[in-house]
């Protein structure tokens, strides 16, 4: 070995080591554009990536690459937040809960898209084709102003999951009729018409002990009528409490009325307290885990799939697992309907609900070249054809022409409840203080849910905290 080859060998080894250590170095040709995207790891985003690779990429002449970082749900916020706030500037697109908008817009991370919409009639049409509730929730900051930031990735609403085999059983039907003098909801339509009273009756009626009979069968474990999120984590009781507060005519602090709107007197108004008390009343019919404060959307879903409850109110986004016989013991017994509402004195059912799902947003450091491709990608993604395919594969669409197509309800059993639900969706705060508001509120709700304080004290505490905090930050005068 000559000295020269030695040196060469060393250099090769060193560069090899460097490549190994520094990892995934990609050499992009000049024409290629890579869009990097941070997404939670679950089917709606996997489908998006799949469609992109199968359809958009070839169409673009293989010059656009979508580099997707699938991050497990539990750590998604932590990862995204750290990436953004540290100035890592890694992602062009980020799937974001609508409530995070304020914090990240104020920080200068999320890009306002009004200029893009104005400059591109096609995009403008796309945005207009969206259901206004969804557009409002997912796109605007400050909430409900014409300042746009996001596009729907996976829109979501709460619906009622039911078990046909239990609900439609003749003996149970008769017994229910005898006890409450009303029909036990069995079909989708009957569930659509269900109000909270009936839902409560279902809860009371189906509380069975091990050894009791259910639909003619002897139970080998305790059984419960209803399940609904009431957990301490993230927004797992806020989503349900807000629904009740709104339906009873109460309110939460309304950021669209800032700076004159108050928290004190609104959050803890008699109507709000009434709503919260109504929600708390339902808890005693739910499986025992609710008393631990950990009944989140996944736990109630799991109880339903394992056949421990007759009805569950949950996000559509968790529905696929119920359909899959491998993960669901009730896969062949499913019935879906709207989430219940509050029947007013006039007999009409009043419904207002917390919206779910996520938009995806552009970041401010995305280059003009990337933006050009990004707009193309968004238009493609929100085009009726792709949205149909998405819905058919298990996603949801907020594009009017898509969800109002008669074909739409055939994709999944819960799709029959989708279009109607959109009309009464509302969102909570988009302000940067979102997490502070949410955390304190969740802590207080948890105390009420686990029976440590009553609804009034809870809402008084929340109101006082919000009033103080928001005054301090200038959002309340």
């Amino acid at each position: 070995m000559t000295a020269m080859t030695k040196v060469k060998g060393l250099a090769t080894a060193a560069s090899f080591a460097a490549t190994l250590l520094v990892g995934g170095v990609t050499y992009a040709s000049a024409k290629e554009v890579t869009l990097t995207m941070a997404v939670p790891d679950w089917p709606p985003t996997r489908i998006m990536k799949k469609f992109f690779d199968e359809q958009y990429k070839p169409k673009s002449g293989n010059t656009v690459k979508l580099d997707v970082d699938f991050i497990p749900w539990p750590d998604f916020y932590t990862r995204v937040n750290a990436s953004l706030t540290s100035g890592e500037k890694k992602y062009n697109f980020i799937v974001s809960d609508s409530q995070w908008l304020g914090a990240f817009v104020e920080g200068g991370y999320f890009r306002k898209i009004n200029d893009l919409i104005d400059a591109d009639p096609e995009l403008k049409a796309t945005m207009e084709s969206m259901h206004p509730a969804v557009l409002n929730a997912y796109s605007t900051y400050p909430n409900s102003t014409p300042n746009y930031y996001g596009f729907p990735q996976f829109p979501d609403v709460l619906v009622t999951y039911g078990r046909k085999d239990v609900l439609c059983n003749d003996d149970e039907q008769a017994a229910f009729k005898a006890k409450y003098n009303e029909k036990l909801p069995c079909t989708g339509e009957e569930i659509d018409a269900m109000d909270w009273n009936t839902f409560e009756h279902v809860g009371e009626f189906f509380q069975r002990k091990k050894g009791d009979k259910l639909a003619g069968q002897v139970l080998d474990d305790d059984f419960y009528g209803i399940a609904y999120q009431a957990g301490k984590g993230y927004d797992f009781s806020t989503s349900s409490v807000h629904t009740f507060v709104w339906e009873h005519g109460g309110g939460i602090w309304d950021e669209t009325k800032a700076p004159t709107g108050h928290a004190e007197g609104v959050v803890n108004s008699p109507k709000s307290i009434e709503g919260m008390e109504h929600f708390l009343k339902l808890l005693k019919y739910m499986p025992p885990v609710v008393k631990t404060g950990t009944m989140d959307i996944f736990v109630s879903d799991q109880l339903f799939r394992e056949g421990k409850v007759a009805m569950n109110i949950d996000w559509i986004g968790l529905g696929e697992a119920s359909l899959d016989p491998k993960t669901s013991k009730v896969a062949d017994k499913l019935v879906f309907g709207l989430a219940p509402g509050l029947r007013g004195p006039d007999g009409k059912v009043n419904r207002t609900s917390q919206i779910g799902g996520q938009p995806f947003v552009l970041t401010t450091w995305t280059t003009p070249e990337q933006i050009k491709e990004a707009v193309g990608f968004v238009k493609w993604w929100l085009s009726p054809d792709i949205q149909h395919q998405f819905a058919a594969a298990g996603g949801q669409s907020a594009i009017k022409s898509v969800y109002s197509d008669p074909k739409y309800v055939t994709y999944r059993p819960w799709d029959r409840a989708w279009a109607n639900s959109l009309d009464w969706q509302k969102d909570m705060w988009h302000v940067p203080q979102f997490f502070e508001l949410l955390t304190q509120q969740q802590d207080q709700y948890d105390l009420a849910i686990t029976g440590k304080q009553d609804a009034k004290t809870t809402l008084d505490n929340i109101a006082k905290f919000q009033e103080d905090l928001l005054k301090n930050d200038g959002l309340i005068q």
Partner: protein
Amino acid sequence: MTAVSSTLPTPRLTAVVAHNWKLAIAVAVVVSAISMAGLPAAVSFWVVGAAAALVAAAFTVNAYRRHYFGALLVAPAIAVLFVMNIFPLLWSLGLSFFAYQANQQTIRFVGLGNYVRILTNDLAAHATWGALINTAMFVVFTVSAQMIVGFLLAILFSKQFPLRKYLLILVLTPMMLSVVASGVFFTYYYDPTFGILSYVINSISGNQFILMSNKVGAVAGIVFADAWMWSPFVMLLVLAGLVSVPKYLYEAAAIDRISSWRQFWMITFPYIRGLLMLALLFRTIEAFKLADLVILLTKGGNDTLTISYHLIRIANEQNKTSEGAAISYLMLFMVIVLTNLYLYLANRRTQGA
């Protein structure tokens, strides 16, 4: 210990030579302070980093010129620790005197404002104190549970017996589990509908048993899981101490007819005391950081919010970076006081006995 055969004179503070580390420190401190006060964080970060590198370089040159081999041996470790640990720590220490939120681009000097806020402000102090009290409670319970269980396990394994090696590895396994997996499985074990614990108790008592529905149960559940995972760590250290006791001491004790109890205090304990102290020290430090199990098992419900979880909420979820830094330095202060107290007591006992 070392014969330093150097005639290099100590430079005056103002002398501009490569090995004048005192000057380097002075320059670094001044430059860092100015840049942190005046420049945006993203820029001052690099200024401070460069200043730190300057100090490190001065130290190394100084050590080399004076033949301080010790310093040269230590240098790589200090360098890595400095870049990866100490510098970021100092950076956040500095931040704790500013009003700064990671998701906003403004920064403002507030002196001790953050510390005052987390300890006295109506909106913030309640959570801090509550979390501190809970943390103290968890430190006491988890560490004492680990010490007791770990100690008893070590006693069990202290003799040679057939298959000891295989049984020992079984007991060591819990600490090799990832906290995520074991924590998630503990939510299952404790679950009132699906869990084994409730199943067994329900079968016996006939009533629905819900462990995590009150503070006692929730604390017990967390302490049990944590003690289960980390008692093996204590066991390993204690066991190592036990096998190091010279056998003849026990023989002498047998011949002197000393009771088992007295044998333990006279012979065994002195040999394991140092290791117990080490175990206590490391476990206390870790117990102060208890957060993941709480997040997985209760989300802080039933009044189980710990200071570490509180910190994650403040610093990570709410992005109140500088307030979080203040909380962590409050924690650090407490851990240092506590560990020094341990070390002081340990040394006093050794000298006083």
